């Protein structure tokens, strides 16, 4: 019979293998939270043993954990430190875990301070890059307060319901940026981005998580006028959130695919990929 020590080591190894499996699936299956990892590993081990396995030095050396002893913290293999640092999962975890009823917006430095030490530099760099490129997750926004950028969950934003009678142009409104400076922050756009993101994630998951979804399926899923769809998708592309690629390959195109594709510079663009992690 294996000793307790061996059992913990085996459990740690099992968790690593599970992480590797998830990595093969890519986003959104990976990175994932510790709780999700434990659930996927389907281990019958008692919680104390799981804690020991996670705390084991050999395990810690091969993974990066956003925050120790926190089941909702994202985790990834050490080789994917960069990917974890730039993931929507990590940013959302930090904002969710830091927010209180009295404070819901945080500077990059405040967020950085709450991540594991080995993740801090990469996280800060990724966050600043996303702010600069306008490629933050769709449910996160930022605003400048006293010259400092503050990030928050869009769900925490309280919006007025009454229509303004003031003409829009003369007075510049405070700019709330969630998808990049180029994207107009209107309600329909936000709505499209959310619906598109959900449809994409679902279709991608069904297709095996290769980050490669056909416009045929997306158009069918979202069911909206072609012009609106194309315009809004173009906005998401400009914001660096999604990319299109050509409908090429050895097997040719069906009439349905031809019809769904977007023509650009003489090329039929058919497949959508997510650009942000």
């Amino acid at each position, binding site marked *: 019979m294996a000793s307790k020590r061996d059992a913990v080591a085996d459990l740690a190894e099992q968790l690593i293998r599970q992480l590797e499996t998830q990595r093969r699936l890519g986003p959104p299956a990976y990175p994932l939270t510790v709780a999700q990892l434990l659930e996927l590993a389907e281990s019958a081990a008692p919680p104390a043993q799981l804690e020991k396995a996670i705390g084991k030095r050999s395990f810690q050396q091969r993974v990066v954990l956003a925050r120790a002893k926190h089941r909702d913290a994202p985790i990834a293999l050490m080789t994917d430190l960069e990917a974890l640092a730039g993931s929507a999962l990590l940013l959302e975890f930090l904002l969710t875990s830091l927010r209180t009823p009295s404070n819901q917006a945080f500077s990059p430095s405040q967020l950085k301070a709450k991540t594991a030490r080995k993740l801090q530099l990469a996280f800060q760099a990724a966050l600043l890059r996303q702010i600069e490129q306008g490629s933050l997750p769709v449910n996160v926004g930022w605003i400048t307060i006293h010259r400092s950028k503050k990030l928050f969950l869009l769900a925490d934003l309280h919006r007025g319901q009454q229509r303004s009678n003031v003409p829009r142009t003369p007075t510049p409104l405070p700019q709330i940026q969630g998808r990049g400076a180029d994207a107009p922050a209107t309600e329909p756009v936000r709505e499209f981005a959310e619906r598109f993101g959900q449809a994409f994630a679902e279709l991608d998951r069904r297709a095996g998580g290769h980050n*490669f979804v056909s416009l045929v399926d997306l158009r069918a899923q979202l069911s909206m006028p072609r012009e609106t769809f194309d315009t809004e998708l173009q906005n998401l592309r400009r914001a660096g959130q999604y990319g299109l690629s050509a409908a090429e390959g050895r097997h040719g195109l069906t009439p349905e695919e031809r019809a769904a594709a977007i023509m650009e510079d003489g090329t039929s663009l058919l497949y959508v990929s997510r650009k942000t992690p």
Partner: protein
Amino acid sequence: MTPSPVPSTSADPNPESSPDRLFDQIASANPFIDNRSSGPSAWDIDVANIHAKQFERLVALAREAQAERRGLGVVLWGEAGIGKSHLLARFARWAEQDKNACVIYLHNLQARPENLPRALLKSVLSVLTRGQIDRFAATLLFRLANAFMREALQYDPARTYSWQDLESGYGQLLDRLSAEEPARAALVDRTVYHVVLNFFTSAYEAREGAEDGSVAGLAVRWLGGDALDPVEARRLGLPPNRPRDEPAALADDQQIKHVLAALCRLASSRRQSFVLCFDQVDNLDTAQAAALARFLAALLDSSANLLVVLSGIQATLLQWHSTKVIQDSAWDRLAQFQIALLRSSVAEGRAIVAARLQRFFQPIAPCETLSRHVQDDPLFPLGKAWTDAFLANKAEVRPRDVLTWAREGWQREQALLRQLGGPAWLERWGMGRLAESTPQSWTPQQIQGAIDSKVAQKVAEQRVQREVEPHTLPPNAANLAGLVGALLEQWLPPDHQVEYLSAPPVGRRPAYDLIVRQRGQRRGEEPRLGLLFLATASAHSTTAALRRLVQDAHPPQQIILITDERTGLPLGRVGTRHYQELHRRGHQRFQHVQITFAEYAELDALQGTVGLARSGDLEIDLPGGQPRAVRAEEVIASHERQGRYAAAPILKAISMVLATEAPPARAALSSAAS
């Protein structure tokens, strides 16, 4: 066309800083002519920020394979022109610098599915030895073996070692390898490692002038999958064959795998990962892809310290998986990691152009006119006007398109510069106006002409690339047979069928590699042409192959024996007798064609260009700088139209043989032959 010079305007004492030098430089060449990477090169113009994350991921995987002693598979995918080959070239440069990894870059494999593993191994050995047949001490294979020997000896520079020390340490290291991973003990093939040791000692002694190094040559042949004569096998210390007078070669795919696994282990001693990089893998046919995937997945299971990179178009690779061309089990290993290349931002597109311009203007960097304009606009002489015309309103761009548009913009500026002269052109440029092109559209004939010209250019490029690196196209009968078969299928009239014959698992090998038969007549009565390809230095193998021809009870009407001049046709006493007997049948019945390396490269280039089109990597530029993809069928039509098949080596000989047959429907071949 040679560009006409721009009239001189000044008599500057320093010609490099004169504005005339700038005008001449712009008029003389277009830095955007080449818009695709065709393999690792030290001269690539690289913008490190583009696809930086993907590059780092590839590097991390190579390091992980080495550090964790694992076999890892990664697919590098994206659409054509997105920068896959470029990224692989950057990766190869990283591997070269500081000896980070041992990267074997492979493309355009042509062997039939059952022969692919051996053809792959042959190519790997050829790259590791740069195709040399002696002086192996200067090769990468020797350096890998040397590192392994040092590990065996636990090398201490202060000590002197005898060959006995090495043999003893070597045996102990193999014991340790077997003991470390009992599950993989069977993969530590002692015969393979024994041959590696003999290779090392022979190459080492040859370097010291103590022997001629011929044993090392035998080792390289055997490790590369070639057959050795029994006497050669004995010299190499191989265990005796059953029956004893048969040639000795790696027995099967399993042993081929063992050689590759051993090479991975040697690289590990050098603290390098061993990387097999397959570029444009999507231009294989499905049977080849299936066979390659099966073999590589098994290899990954057996090898520590191996990274397999498959690069191709994502849609094709995913379709191969969904239609089970690549089985799930193989897919899980080969696509364990996925690196996607997506379109670049417009800013990145500008950076690509700026990098080319910087390299192009390096020779005239002191020119004050140039530096002033570049300071104002880093994309001079394309500039803001070009950016507005080609990049405005773009959400994202394909790097190849950006280069095509830059080429178009440059051509327009060149035309205007020649027309106006330097100072007037510069003045006009300062006003921020883009040189216009005359709007026009092409007729189908013009498009066809452009395709012919592009295909001719690519065939020439591919041929030159092989000639520059002949070790990437080693003598290999299976590869040559697959290549000729593929070209014949493209070229022969539809009433002809090309049949591939392969060795059954048990029983006699077929006498021919390919049979060309004419359809529409009763089986057994139709005209047939048998083709046999030989590229071996083993006289025993040659004799066995010729014996099969001589003893064939129902030979085709015509037989062509094709050999590679680099190996020749080694004949022993019995082999000579068979060869003479075949010749006695007359020139109408038997011909021997010896192919030179240049001819082999020509055939490879014809098929390689078809492969480029299959991978979406062949495009012409329509007026206005709009790219248009050229399909594989259009390349085949161009080859036919331009008489490239009819003029190609071997194919020409085959056409002449077929043209001598009586049946009709041979007009095309007869005219080709004449």
